[in-house]
């Protein structure tokens, strides 16, 4: 059962081959067996899962089941879950029980999905390797010496190891797509505003976007359809109908114009990754797509701009964690300043602290124009690059990450090298565009991801292109041998 996609599980549940309770129990057993070696889950919610599974089975008996009813999912621990610890991978929220559900959680609950638990992540979603978690690093099921990517590393590892058919993630600079690539999964970061951010603990509000990680484009289409939509509680969510992503999956790709930005194939890209990507592009030609060379000339400015904007926003977003109302509070504060400084110094890990400091500096009087405003200008230039590209092409394709998964500990002492692993994904967040990563091969035993970037609200097109590719290839069906 654990090796089935959502589409297959949905069919099995509908046909009465197994109940949601049976499915849930079997996955909870797998989690019990494999999670200690992977550290993919921070919290396993057995009781919630079983009661939701029984409710889903009951709903099915009453003929009220939808395609996702009774299907298990894991929630990234950045989404608030009513009555369940929501740690955001931080000591700061180690004992924080959220008093409400995120909109994404609410919607998936409403669809009848079963929450298995909360997945590990880089602290406050800051990281590209899942090594910045208070709960320890997560291992990549394809190679236990390798990182799963980040920040949604726990979600990616859990799906790759077949502990759950799907998981939610969030993506501020690549945090869905990069771990999807490093773990051989399909993951989509929707257009900014497509999925509500209500209840999703903010890292960088103008960049954060939730989305699914799953085994196939089809599963992502099913999940995104349930997660997306206008939410009056999120002023940046867009009031626009959600298309039927599943219905669009089988459209032929004939005449589809795919652009390859030359900046995504230059220095720093691993040769074996480049070859896997080239092979995937060749498959797209076979599917009827036309491939064009394009340019996104400001690509090299994306990382510097991101590492001003995201820290600036995070320095403000994380100010609420002050030890006053909830979260970590230091022992015996001697005065207010001591309460603030010790609670925060103890509650936040080094990468979060670094970004808060960088962001505070960038927003300070005298530096604001040189850093924050300049970064915003670059952000517009990057958006313009994409605008111009989408005047010529329907999709942009390239590697998701310049290398396959690296080893645990390999980059922890070198933040700049770590930041470069998001070089192809970050610009997409800065421009608010949708991006998808799908598996297109391996280097050794470590997966390679292809990134597809679409115009605003072109999720249908991305999922369609990924699905057609998955109809003629089988990379996405491979299971890590240790977890077969």
């Amino acid at each position, binding site marked *: 059962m654990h090796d089935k996609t959502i589409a297959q599980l949905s069919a099995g549940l509908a046909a009465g081959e197994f109940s949601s309770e049976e499915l849930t129990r079997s996955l909870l057993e797998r989690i019990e067996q494999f999670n200690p070696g992977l550290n993919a889950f921070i919290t396993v919610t057995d009781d919630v899962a079983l009661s939701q599974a029984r409710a889903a089975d009951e709903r099915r008996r009453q003929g009220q089941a939808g395609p996702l009813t009774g299907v298990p999912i894991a929630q990234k621990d950045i*989404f*608030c879950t009513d009555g369940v610890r*929501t740690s*955001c991978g931080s000591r700061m*929220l180690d004992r*924080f029980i*959220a*008093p*409400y559900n*995120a909109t994404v959680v609410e919607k998936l609950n409403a669809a009848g999905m079963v929450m298995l638990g909360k997945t590990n992540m880089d602290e406050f979603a800051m990281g590209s390797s899942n090594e910045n978690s208070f709960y320890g690093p997560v291992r990549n099921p394809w190679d236990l010496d390798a990182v799963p990517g980040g920040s949604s590393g726990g979600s990616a590892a859990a799906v790759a190891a077949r502990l759950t058919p799907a998981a939610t993630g969030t993506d501020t600079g690549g945090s869905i797509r990069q771990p999807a690539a490093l773990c051989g999964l399909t993951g989509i970061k929707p257009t900014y505003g497509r999925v509500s*951010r*209500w*209840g*999703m*603990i*903010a890292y*960088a*509000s*103008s960049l954060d976007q939730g989305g699914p990680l799953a085994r196939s484009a089809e599963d992502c289409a099913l999940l995104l359809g349930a997660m997306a939509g206008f939410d*009056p*509680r*999120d*002023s*940046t969510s867009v009031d626009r109908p959600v298309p039927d992503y599943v219905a669009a999956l089988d459209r032929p790709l004939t005449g589809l114009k795919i652009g390859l930005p030359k900046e995504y194939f230059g220095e720093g890209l691993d040769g074996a990754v480049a070859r896997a990507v080239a092979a995937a592009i060749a498959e797209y030609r076979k599917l009827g797509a036309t491939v064009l060379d394009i340019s996104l000339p400001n690509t090299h400015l994306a990382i510097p701009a991101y590492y001003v904007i995201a820290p*600036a*926003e995070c*320095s*403000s977003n*994380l*100010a*609420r*964690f*002050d030890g*006053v*109302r*909830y979260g970590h509070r230091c022992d015996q504060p001697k005065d*207010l300043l001591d309460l*603030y400084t010790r609670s925060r110094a103890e509650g936040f890990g080094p990468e979060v602290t670094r970004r808060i400091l960088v962001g*505070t500096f960038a*927003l*300070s*009087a005298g530096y*604001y124009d040189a850093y*924050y405003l300049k970064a915003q200008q670059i952000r517009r230039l990057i958006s313009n690059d994409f605008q111009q590209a989408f005047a010529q092409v329907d999709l942009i394709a390239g590697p998701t990450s310049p290398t396959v998964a690296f080893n645990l500990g390999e980059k922890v002492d070198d933040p700049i090298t770590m930041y470069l692993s998001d070089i192809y994904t970050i610009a997409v967040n800065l421009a608010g565009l949708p991006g998808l990563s799908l598996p297109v091969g391996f280097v050794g035993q470590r997966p390679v991801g292809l990134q597809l970037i679409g115009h605003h609200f072109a999720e249908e097109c991305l999922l369609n292109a990924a699905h057609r590719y998955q109809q003629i290839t089988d990379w996405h069906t491979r299971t890590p041998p240790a977890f077969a």
Partner: protein
Amino acid sequence: MMEWETVIGLEIHAQLATKSKIFSGASTAYGAEPNTQACTIDLGMPGVLPVLNREAVRMAAVFGLAIGAEIARRSVFARKNYFYPDLPKGYQISQYELPIVQKGQLTIDLDEGVSKVIGITRAHLEEDAGKSLHEDFQGLSGIDLNRAGTPLLEIVSEPDLRSAKEAVAYMKKLHQMVVYLGICDGNMQEGSFRCDANVSVRRKGDPKLGTRAEIKNLNSFRFVERAIEFEIERQIDLIEAGGKVVQETRLYDPDKGETRSMRGKEEANDYRYFPDPDLLPLVLDEEFIATTRASLPELPDTKKQRFISQYGLSSYDAGVLTTSRALSDYYEATVAALGGEPKLCANWVMGDLSAFLNKENREITASPVSPVQLAGLLRRIQDQTISGKIAKDVFEALWAGEGETDAIIEKRGLKQITDNSAIEKVIDDVIAANPEQLAQYRAGKDKLFAFFVGQVMKASKGKANPQQVNDLLAEKLKG
């Protein structure tokens, strides 16, 4: 002695009278148990997001249009970052570079009919913080977040004010305006309308502004006046003694009647303002502005002029009757019900009615005597059923809820005597009873006329028509 000039600018925080908070659905009602009116958004829980209250925007626009300001078609909410225990998110959502209201003005009335135009630089929307409570927690502080997220309009004046008196006149005019517009309840005890004053002095003729001190949280007109006066004197004394004013924030101590330093400029926060990424820029279209403009009530100054021209009132009376919308509404309803006699109505509204309201500390909207009832009473003065003096007794009975005017007159037998023969009868009795006074009067002691009037009125229990009494008595006393 050197001549000094004072330069004052005021920043006034008016709490907007919305039902719910500026970025959440929690109630803004005052006085609830601590933290019972603070939802997850007001508490700054992880993952929560602000959604702008439309009504707060409308109210800000109403204010802007009323002071002839520009309404920004696009304004931006920014985060003002600082740590404080009653600031749940670690930042306050405010407006910084692009406020919703820009460049307005307000005309204030000074002594002897002089008026002065005061520039209003800007007015912006922002959220209030919570409250720290320092009592009853065994040495710890308590936090009440009921007020957190309450909508405020911060109204910033140009440094156009030249004395404490002008500052108070401006503040009172602004207070009248926001209450008139129905966008603020104006309750200063509850903090709905409070003021920070920027005060500096310079030698007369000096084009350069002096260094200013900011006096925080002045929540009464009297405190504003006293604090500014104290501060002016302090600064002048300091400079004359060879010292220098430092730029700083000062707090007014109403018990001691003095201001004292709170924090200096070197300790000033760097608020690290930046646009709030959780809120889109606020875009207002022409239709919204036109609709809002059409909804504006008649403003106090316009209404005052109309009262002068339409009702023939004095400038003073028109000014008093237009101090609040409720008062002017009451007055106009009375005139309408009576069908005229605007001066008589003005005298009664400003006189007996106001006196009774003051005595019982009631708002005019809570008056037990309605405009229609008051007009009913005035009609009986007008048609000479009762005298003005008797009317005061009837009014008291009306106030006490003893029924309508005519019933009260009837029940108490207060109807005015206008029958000449009846009055003559009373006069004859009075003359007969006072032969001595009559003799003196006839001997030339004219002053005794008033004595006879008094006796006649007394004998008629005040009901005799005073004019007829005068006429008939004069006739009879001649002999």
